[in-house]
C-alpha cells in the first residue's frame, strides 16, 4: 500500500481525521490529536465511546463483482477509506490522491451521484482519461464521506481492456 498521501489534493471541505487534528478529543485518555501515527487508533477509541463521531458504511463492488464493505469516517475521502481499510482493489490510487491519474475512478448510482459536492474542472480533466467513464463517475480522492452516505454502494469500473481480453480468451478457446 502506498503510504499516506503527503501532497494530496483533497477537496477543501474534506476534514480527514487521519491527518493530525489540532483539537484534542474531549474523552479522558483519548490520544486523538497527539500525532499522526496515533490518530487512527485514537479515532477507533473515540468512535467506541462517542456516538457523535459518525461511522458510515460504504460498499465497493470490486472489478470481479465481489462486494467489499468498509466502515468509513465522516470526512475521509473514498480513496482514504480504501487505503486505510486496506481494501483489495488492484492499482487503486496510483498518484496517492494528487489528481494526477484516474486510478481511483468510482461509479455511483444516479441518486447518490446527484447529492455529491460539485465536481471541479481538474477532476473532470482526469476523469476524461479514465477507463469505462460514465455520467456518474467520480474520483475517489475527491469525494468525502458524509453521514448521509451511510449504506452507499459504489462500483469499481471494469476496465475496457478486460472486456477486450475476455473476447480474446473467448476466441482462443473456440
Amino acid at each position, binding site marked *: 500500500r502506498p503510504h499516506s498521501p503527503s501532497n494530496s489534493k483533497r477537496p477543501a471541505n474534506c476534514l480527514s481525521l487521519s491527518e493530525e487534528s489540532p483539537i484534542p478529543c474531549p474523552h479522558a485518555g483519548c490520544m486523538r490529536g497527539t500525532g499522526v501515527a496515533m490518530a487512527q487508533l485514537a479515532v477507533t477509541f473515540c468512535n467506541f465511546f462517542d456516538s457523535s463521531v459518525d461511522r458510515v458504511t460504504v460498499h465497493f463492488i470490486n472489478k470481479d463483482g465481489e462486494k467489499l464493505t468498509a466502515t468509513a469516517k465522516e470526512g475521509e475521502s473514498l480513496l482514504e477509506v480504501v487505503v486505510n481499510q486496506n481494501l483489495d482493489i488492484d*492499482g487503486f490510487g496510483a498518484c496517492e490522491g494528487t*489528481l494526477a*491519474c484516474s486510478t481511483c475512478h468510482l461509479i455511483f448510482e444516479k441518486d447518490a451521484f446527484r447529492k455529491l459536492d460539485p465536481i471541479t474542472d*481538474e477532476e473532470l480533466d482526469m476523469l476524461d482519461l479514465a477507463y469505462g467513464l460514465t455520467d456518474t463517475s467520480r474520483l475517489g480522492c475527491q469525494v468525502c464521506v458524509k453521514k448521509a452516505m451511510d449504506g452507499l454502494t459504489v462500483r469499481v469500473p471494469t476496465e475496457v481492456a478486460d472486456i477486450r*481480453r475476455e473476447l480474446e480468451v473467448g476466441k482462443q478457446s473456440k
Partner: protein
Amino acid sequence: MAMSSGRVCWKWGSPLRRPRPAAGWRGFSRLHSTAALAPQICVVGSGPAGFYTAQHLLKHHKLAQVDIYEKLPVPFGLVRFGVAPDHPEVKNVINTFTQTAHSNRCAYYGNVTVGKDVLVKELKQAYHAVVLSYGAEDNRVLGIPGENLSGVYSARAFVGWYNGLPENRDLKPDLNSETAVVLGQGNVALDVARVLLSPLDMLRKTDITEGSLAAIAGSKLKRVWLVGRRGPLQVAFTIKELREMINLPGTRPLLDPADFTGLGDVVKDVPRPRRRLTELMVKSALEKPGEKEAARWASATKEWGLKFQRSPLEVLPAADGKRARGIRMAITSLEGSGESARAVPTGEVEEFECGLILSSIGYRSRPIDSSVPFDSKLGIISNSVGRVQGATGLYCSGWVKRGPTGVIVTTMNDSFDTAQSVLEDLQSGLLNLSDSKEGFECVRSILHSRGVQPVTFSDWEKIDAAEVARGRLVGKPREKIVDFQEMLQLIGH
C-alpha cells in the same frame, strides 16, 4: 556470440536443454502436490510497465520470484526520465514501485543491458517466464533535409537532457533564439513548451537538473509554437496538460480565432474527452478572458501558440550552413474527419523563422533481439494479450506491447493484463514448473563471466539518498546525478 555453452547454468547441464516432454501435465501435478514450486519470472525494464507487471505477479501468485532487469543503474524508466520535473504528483507511483522492490520475492538488477550483457535466450533458459517491458527507447524521425542541423533536437533527447538521462547530458541545446517550434501536438510537446516557458522560480523547486536549469535561465526564448499536421480536432495532448499551459504564469496563449470558430458545435456529439478538450481551446481562443486572466496575458513576457495544418518539409540552414534558421512547411488540408482525418499537402508552402526546432512526433520501440518477433510497421513486439507470438514463456507489456501512447493508468492496466496472461499460463501448465529454473543464480554467473556488476535496489537507495541530500541544499526535491560513473562510484562499484 562469444558465449561458451558450458558456462550457462552449468549446474543444470546443457543450456540448450529443452523442456522434457515427460514432465508435462502429469509431471506438473505430481510435483505440485509434493512440493510447491516457485515460478522464476523476470521482467526486462524497470519503468511503470515493468513494475506494474511485477506488482501484479507478486500479488496474485504467492510463490513467484520476480527479478527486474534495467539497463541503467537507476530504476523507474520514464517516471524518472520522462515525466516532467514540474509534475511531481505523477512520480508518486514510485512509492508503490519501491514497495514492490522491497518484497522479499522481488529483486532489482540495474546496469544490465539485456541483448548485450545477457541475451533473451539466456534469460529464457534461466526463467520460466520472461516479460519484455523495455519501452520505447527511440523516437520517430522527421526524415526531412536539415534535420541534423544544430538547433534541431528530438523532444525525446531534450526531455532526457532536462531530466538527467545520462545519454543526453551533453546535449547542450542552442537556446539563443527567440522563437522555438515544436513539431507535434501531444503531451510531450506541451511538456517541453511548458518547461521552456515556465517562470524560473517554479522550475527551481523541481528536480530539473542543475545544468539544464542554468541553460534555460540563460535562454533568449520568448515564444513557442506547437505545430500539427492536422487540425484542432486531432490534437493528441490531453486536457490537463492544455489547461496547465493556458494557466502558466507569465505567458499568454496565441490562438487564432479562425482555427476555432464553429468548432463548439462540431464537438457537441463527440465523446466527452475530445469535446471538453476542444471546448477549452475554443473558450481560450474565442471568449473574452476574465479580468484576472486578461491582466496576466497583458503582463506576460512569453507566449505560446498552436499552429495547425502545417507539415514540415525542410529545416532551413543559416548562412553558416550549420545552424537552423527556420523551417519550411507544407500547408495541408484535411481529408476525412475526426480522429482518422488525413493531412494532404495543398501545394502551398510557408517559411517560418526559428532557431530552435524540437521534433515531438512520437517515441518508437526497438527490436531487442532477432529471436523476438517485431512488427516494425507498428513498432511493437508481435503479441496477443502480452503473449509474444510463437514464443512460449515470452511476454511483453507497456509501450513495447501496444505502442508509445497513453498515460500511467493505460500502462498499469495493460501490464496487469500481461501479468494475468502469465498467471493463466502458469495455471494451465503451459509454463512447466517441474522444469526447474535457476533464475538469477544462473544469470549471475553469466554476468560475472562478462564482467558486468549489477546494481541492486539497496544500491539505488544509496544513490537516491545522495540525490535527495544534494537537492535539499538548494531547495529541490532532489538533484539528479547525471553521470553514469559517478553513480557507480557512489555505490562502490
